[in-house]
């Protein structure tokens, strides 16, 4: 079986052959044999790769899959390579469109730094939210035009409330 694994901006192609604890695996041309043993609750594993010892954790945070290897945490997406190829076009179509900036936690809106119609760049701060006694700035992931602003300063918001909508 082959999988496409994306971590940050890098996509690795992994093909593997899994037999009872030992997994033979090719990752971007490098061949590895992994001895994998469950330590606790099917989430925490000990991996031995040519003798090198790694402790690996699989977790979910909401929709996001996360793995942690020797303390280094990465958000990952994994796709079956064949299916990924079939879906290629659908994906890129879906990726376009609007971005919703949501409240990452319940809190109070301190400041909205954009207005409807403004052009924002990728990474630009748009809203400041206060929670846990700290002010935190939320950023646009992709650039675009501010289509809608759904909160005002001083508003109390719940987690995942949409605050600002940015479109193409």
């Amino acid at each position, binding site marked *: *079986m082959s*999988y496409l*694994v994306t*971590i*940050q901006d*890098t996509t*690795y192609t*992994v093909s*593997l052959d*899994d037999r009872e604890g030992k*997994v033979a*695996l090719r*990752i971007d041309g*490098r061949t*590895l044999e*992994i001895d*994998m043993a469950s330590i606790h*609750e*099917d*989430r*925490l*594993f000990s*991996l031995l*790769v040519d003798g090198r010892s*790694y402790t*690996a*954790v*699989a*977790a*979910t*945070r909401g929709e996001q*899959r996360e*793995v*942690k*290897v*020797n*303390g*280094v*945490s*990465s958000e*990952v997406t*994994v796709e*079956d390579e064949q*299916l990924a190829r079939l879906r290629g076009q659908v994906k890129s179509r879906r990726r376009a469109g609007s971005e919703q900036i949501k409240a*990452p*936690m*319940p*809190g109070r809106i301190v400041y909205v730094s954009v207005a409807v119609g403004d052009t924002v760049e990728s990474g630009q701060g748009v809203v400041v939210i206060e*929670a*846990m*006694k*700290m002010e*935190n*700035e939320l*950023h646009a992931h992709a650039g675009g035009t501010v289509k809608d602003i759904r909160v005002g300063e001083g508003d109390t918001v719940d987690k995942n409330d949409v605050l600002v909508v940015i479109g193409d």
Partner: protein
Amino acid sequence: MIRKILIANRGEIAVRVIRTCREMGIETTAVFSEADRTALHVQFADEAFCIGDAPSSDSYLHMDRIIDTAQKAGADAVHPGYGFLSENADFADRCVEAGITFIGPSGDAMRAMGSKTAARKTMSRAGVPVVPGTEEGIESDEEGLGVAESIGYPVLVKAAMGGGGKGMRVVESPDDLAGALRTARSEAQSAFGDDTVYLEKYLVEPRHVEFQVLADQHGNVVHLGERECSVQRRHQKLIEESPSCILDDALRNAMGEAAVRAAEAVGYTNAGTVEFIVDQDRQFYFLEMNTRLQVEHPVTELRTGQDLVRRQIEIAAGMPLPFRQEDVRLHGASLECRISAEDPNAQFMPSVGAVTRLSEPGGPGVRLDSGFCAGYEVPIYYDPMIAKLIVWAEKREEAIARMKRALEEYDIGGIKTTIPFHLRALSDPRFISGDYSTSFVETMGPDEDAGADERHIAAAFAAIMKHREARRATPAGVGGDGADGAGESPWKLTGRRDAMRRER
């Protein structure tokens, strides 16, 4: 003697105080908000009472309920921890009026240090150097421009009642002064209910060095050496260490003596901290006095062997300090990293949620002051700091290596924490050399790709997990599509099972 103490706080500092009380055979009463019913300090205390809703103003800041609870529980004394009511002079006074020992300085000593302008005046008189600037509030823009001219730009506009960076503005040129005075006044009014602001010389790349003092009720005042706290972000300390790399014995003695004079000048009792800034010429200036136990007190505990909470309780009970200045010995090197539920890769955004997995560091020279256990749900209402990791070693470079080792052992699942930040900071050549200032964090470079090998393995591991979940899904698959992972995945199951547990 004190038989029962109410701890008017939460989190790691409440747990910290309870530990010493247990060791002293003193009973403990915890208070908690509705959000903290299952918190560790509630579990560790002998008794625990709910004092209100989640927001601090309804619970940990609610003086009436806290004093009422102390009286009902029959507590002889209240320990305020840090934050919340710890530097509230009225609260200290009200405890005393209610016949309860307040474990900290008198309300008057707090007031003397609470106003920055008044404190600057007192310190000057006591011969403690203060940053050049005004001892009174600035009344008009004209007055401000004159003062700024005489002390030289850049200047700092500060709120007289300020703290935590609020109501503070750096002004580089006369053009910006009027605007800065206006915004600082408005911030100060809303944050502290007092719009008095004053001017100070702004020191470039200063270092933040503070001295721990202890003062009993019999006139004995000692200092227990320094802590360097220059690794800060938005005026929040992140890493503290002792000794400071820029102090030699002569400077340490001079600053320590100044700290003792500062405490004596206001009739201070109990544990307190005198904060200084040290400029690039190694001149030191009084910044403020924190009239409470500090977050970073364990750094001093490890270097001196003293239990500062024990000393606080003894002092509050009227006992004399069991040692004198000449008995204080400073050993080795100590370092503290504050562990917060924040994502250092997303501008330190708070990270709430349940701690699904916990594995704590141990072994030689490692101390963990934690406020949570596995299963804990980090609430959104309070400070995101959830634990402190402190190490000691004979030499500074060994302490740094030990801290990195301990951070690598520390595994907290389910939430993001500042552990990766600390690992980066401790690997920064400026930190290693000891040549860093309060601008350290903002001038840290982008995250180096240190975990390339780990990410390679992470990709392999993720593929294996996906493969196994697909394989398991297929036989049970209702309508198949197993290879897509649409079936029941162990990964998803794990998440769902956790969610169920939380709901029950």
